[in-house]
């Protein structure tokens, strides 16, 4: 559960940074499209909200928001380090972490 929340956070920060021209150029060779950038940023914000709902559902209203906030700070740090240290693999690692969390989900729930 925490892994899913954390990796959704990584994915959200990934989308938010790819919605900015500066970081888009850092990761991709093709030109930055401002309209696509807006979509990516909107998706990123959407994921952050979804992540909040996930944490509240998992930990309740008093503990969930604290967990959410802590997980978001760490996922932002993780994403930034990933983008800097492994720019090529970064988006694939972000996708893989979300997928691994979704695959492992039934194991934890059961």
């Amino acid at each position: 559960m925490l892994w899913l929340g954390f990796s959704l956070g990584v994915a959200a920060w990934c989308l938010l940074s790819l919605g900015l021209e500066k970081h888009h150029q850092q990761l991709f060779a093709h030109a930055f499209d401002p309209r696509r950038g807006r979509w990516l940023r909107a998706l990123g914000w959407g994921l952050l909200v979804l992540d909040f709902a996930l944490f509240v559902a998992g930990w309740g209203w008093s503990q969930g928001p604290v967990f959410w906030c802590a997980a978001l700070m760490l996922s932002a740090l993780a994403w930034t380090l990933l983008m800097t240290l492994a720019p090529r693999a970064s988006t694939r690692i972000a996708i893989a972490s979300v997928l691994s969390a979704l695959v492992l989900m039934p194991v934890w729930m059961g």
Partner: protein
Amino acid sequence: MKNTFSQAMAWLHTWAGLVIGWLLFVIFVGGTIACFDKELTHWMQPALHGKTPVANIDLSRTIEGLQRIAKPHPHAYYVTLPSERSPALQSAVYYDAGPHDAINIDTSTGQAIPETAGGEFFFTLHYNLHSETWGMYIVGIAGMFMLIAILTGIVIHKRIFKDFFTFRPASGGQRAWLDGHNLTGVLGLPFHLMIAYTGVAIFVANYMPAGLLAAYDGDVEKFYVEASDSYERPETHQPLKSIYPIDKLIADARERLGQPISWVSVHHPDDTSATISFGGDHSRAVAWNFDQVFYDANDGKLLHESGAFKSGYKTYTFLGGLHMAQWGGSALRWLYFVLGLAGCVMIASGMQVWVAKRAKKVAEAGAWSGYGLVQALNLGVVGGMPLASAAMLIANRLIPATMAERASWEIGVFCAVWILASLYAAIPAVRSRGWGHFFAINAVACGLIPLVNLATSPQSHVFATIARGDWALAGVDLTALALCAGFAWFAQHSFAKARQPASVRTGRGRAARGDAVVDDTALADH
């Protein structure tokens, strides 16, 4: 106007940060380790490893044990029952002044276990530097300085959103340190703000006592009893015949509190005013759990049930609980631990920005200044404290279990290693060689923790604990290994940087190339 304002803020950020930075680093490292204080204490009690605590505990016998060691006029006895995080039965006698006397018992044998400074050493260090009231005030001032540094930091960071995800370690020197400082500072901002604010708020009654002293006519004790809906009665100075059998009360206390009992205390245990109180732990909610029941120690009659807390006090317990992270299980403690590490990096890199920014100027001027002192303090504190902490854990395994004053020896090792490291850092030749060297020593020390554990303690080493599924203990060794890898990576990075020709390097790093190469091969040997 705007220009002078932001310049003033930058000045304040620089100097408030520098002056208090080393102390703040110590507080942050201590607090970060204290996320796992109970787990670390357990790790430092190898006599208990691999044993299962007994469920039925004879509390009266435990109290008798305390009566045997108590000095005259004890203020209170406290007994904390074994739990998953702390399998030892902890008991202690507290006095009105001076240090307490403690016995920790292995419930499977009934024997006292060898004493250790434990994780509590780091917990106490981070809120009062082991200096009682004065230390608490110094830490409070450091906390307030940190709040100033955070707020001024936000004001002077003009590209706080533009540079939100920006980290350019390859650019080297001041740029890299500043990016590291900004990154850990900005992305961890909610945590830093929360931890500094709640840390100061916990001691609010001590830091801002004026209102309290005026309203309660100087009787601070009365304020605490009223605010926390506690119970206290004046001493009668008549000797108590015997303490009512505590074991008879525990079922009733559990029912009244509606939660498992985690501790019991006897106040004024030698006086007929004695009370017996019970309470639970803080694991179930964010706010501290101060629900208690009080019984008369003469006849076991119920005196008081607490629970009528006013909203101000509830807010206080929430802020305190948010800081202490005793709820949310190990998941939350890990989040806090890593965020704490990020805070340590923020402080250390911030002070390194100060050094890197001035490196060129000082090199050109060649004059004596505070520059060398700052550089040496950075190395001595930032490089020395993790080293001293690692040395203390190693000492825990090497000091014989039968040695008297064992905990003091552990602390002695901590202090001695830190002093030696600081003196070493103050040697000009070491100082100018820089960080790689200190990173490498720290990597070796952290790597030694699981190795010494493996060599000395058959029930405690990482293979035994993983085989038992005892992840709290294994976590200490694995974290030490992770820190070892982290320090080694940093060391290698610094050495690689120092080997580059001077024209490529920016900022500091005037290391003699020959020395750096020797260091690197030395590291490869380990």
